[in-house]
């Protein structure tokens, strides 16, 4: 098309668009001025279920002209006849509103207005609705049931383990490498480095990492190899200091423990990465353990660790970062393997008992999945409903 043709086409386009716009406005005007603006229908107002009180829920069916609206305004009154005041506004397309900040055991009435600029249409009044608090969240009963089932199974296996039942757990590849890594570092006369991730001790992944640190430090103490633990969280630092100290005394070498090896760097994500990188380059650890919860800094650490020729054993439950550890490290404990590792390394029967419990629940979940998809295939949503 020539440029001339293109301009012409654009002009026609614009003209068309203008005409359409005028029509749209006319339609809107017609719908608003002639009081044809349809209000929302089927208004329901009731106490919000499963809450701490002070809140009502209002639902409605959207106005037939929903697409033309600005939104809905929910109005509240203590009396059926009013006066109504605005409780809140919601966007078009929505059919529910929670009115919070109310007084329990008081009566409220509601009305929902469909709004356009400069006009609105009111629905019928709904109510009375009386807010109150509940003692148990019925919507979470399935979660409670699952947790009780899980705890029951785990406790049963622990009891069996205590009675001396033999519990088999398969080998986990990354774990056997721990000993090898410590040994190789020692041969090369280099220290070990343990990076416990970015989170604090309220994160269970970090606690699992610290358990692994305990075992690594124990081995290192036997070989008399120093363990460097740079931390980004002061609580992780103090806890790690205690753990490593304990491991050294268990190995009968409390004198070899150096608190300064377990240090705080900075709370800043990339500042921590910069500090760890610098430490790797200068201390040249023979093995680097990247265990814990990591974010984007994972690959910065793992690539630097690789460049100094260290054996790297990673482990994290951060699914987003697993691809980078898998590509850049020698061994990676993937997700649950890391939790398993922390119990596996202790070799205590009770710990293995909890692993067995997890596996039984896993079987049940696979069973539920299998039955569930079959039921779904026939249009039944029973299993689906259990996990709502």
């Amino acid at each position, binding site marked *: 098309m020539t440029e001339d043709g293109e301009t012409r086409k654009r002009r026609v386009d614009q003209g068309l668009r203008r005409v359409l716009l005028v029509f749209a406005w006319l339609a809107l005007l017609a719908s608003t001025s002639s009081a044809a603006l349809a209000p929302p229908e089927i208004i329901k107002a009731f106490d919000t279920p499963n809450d701490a009180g002070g809140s009502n829920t209002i639902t409605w069916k959207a106005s037939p002209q929903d697409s033309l609206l600005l939104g809905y305004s929910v109005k509240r009154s203590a009396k059926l006849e009013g006066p109504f005041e605005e409780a809140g506004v919601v966007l078009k397309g929505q059919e529910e509103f929670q009115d919070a900040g109310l007084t329990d055991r008081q009566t409220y009435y509601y009305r929902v207005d469909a709004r356009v600029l400069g006009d609105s249409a009111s629905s019928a009044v709904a109510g009375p609705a009386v807010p109150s608090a509940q003692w148990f969240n019925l919507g*979470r009963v*399935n*979660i409670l049931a*699952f*947790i009780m089932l899980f705890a029951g199974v785990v406790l049963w296996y622990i009891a069996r383990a205590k009675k001396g039942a033999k519990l*088999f757990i*398969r080998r*986990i590849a990354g774990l056997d490498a721990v000993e090898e890594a410590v040994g190789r570092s020692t041969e090369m006369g280099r220290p070990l480095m343990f990076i416990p991730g970015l989170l*604090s*001790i*309220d*994160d*269970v992944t970090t*606690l699992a990492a610290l358990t692994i640190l305990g075992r690594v430090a124990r081995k290192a103490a036997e070989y008399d190899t120093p363990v460097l633990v740079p931390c980004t969280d002061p*609580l992780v630092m*103090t*806890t790690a200091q205690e753990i490593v100290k304990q491991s050294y005394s268990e190995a009968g070498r409390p004198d070899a423990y150096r608190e300064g090896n377990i240090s*705080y*760097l*900075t*709370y*800043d994500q*990339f*500042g921590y990465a*910069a*500090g760890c*990188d*610098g430490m790797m*380059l200068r201390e040249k650890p023979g093995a680097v353990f990247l265990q814990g919860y990591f974010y984007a800094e994972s690959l910065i650490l793992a690539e630097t660790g690789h460049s100094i020729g260290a054996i790297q054993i990673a482990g994290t439950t951060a699914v*987003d970062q*697993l*691809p980078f550890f*898998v*590509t850049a490290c020698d061994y990676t404990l*993937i*997700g*649950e*393997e890391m939790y398993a590792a922390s119990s596996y390394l202790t070799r205590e029967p009770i710990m293995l008992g909890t*692993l*067995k419990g*997890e*596996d039984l629940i*896993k*079987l049940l*979940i*696979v069973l*539920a*999945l*299998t039955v*569930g*998809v*079959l039921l*779904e*295939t026939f*249009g039944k*949503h029973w*299993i*689906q409903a259990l*996990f*709502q």
Partner: protein
Amino acid sequence: MTVVGIWIAAFLTLAIFSFLYKDNPFYKLAEHLYVGVSAGYYVIYVWSTDIRPLLFNPFVQTHAQTGSWGASLSQNAALFIPAVLGIVMLLRAFPKIAWVSRWPISFMVGIGAGLAITADVQGYLFPQVQATLVPLWVRGSLFTTFNNVLLFVGVVGSVGYFYFSREHKGFLGGLSKIGILFIMVAFGASFGYTVMARISLLIGRIHFLFADWLHLIR
């Protein structure tokens, strides 16, 4: 001031990049400055966004409302608990009574573990299981049927990979093999997916150097 700031920023940027060649004094300088400045930065940041609004402001506000420090102290008495636990934490620095710091540590571990129990079930387990419950046969769409079957097999396979109670031989061996294949595809895919965002970051830095610092480009 802006010009000075840009020169500082440019110097630090280049100093960090120099690390890609090898460790050198510039990187060491930038690294140590970074660790020092950011460690200090977070002390101020945490004071300004956590300690002051959460611990001190409630006392000041109640005092402003009631006009009495007594009322302020009694109404916000609960805040003494974290304040005391926080100070107890600092006793770690004194070896003889360091063991007291285990109490706040236990408190924090308890919060984390307690929250994780319900959050793991509500936030991870149930939604993931629910999203996998798809019909294995979708009338009229062979493609959706294929995808759904693949999804189911992939989920069961990768769950199977994490089964520890038995050697991965026989049926379980096959299942976990399927699982690990799926996992590898997933890792490759998310690796590839991230490349774009990472290159964007580098574009941002290089643009800073060329435009804001050197004015080579507009």
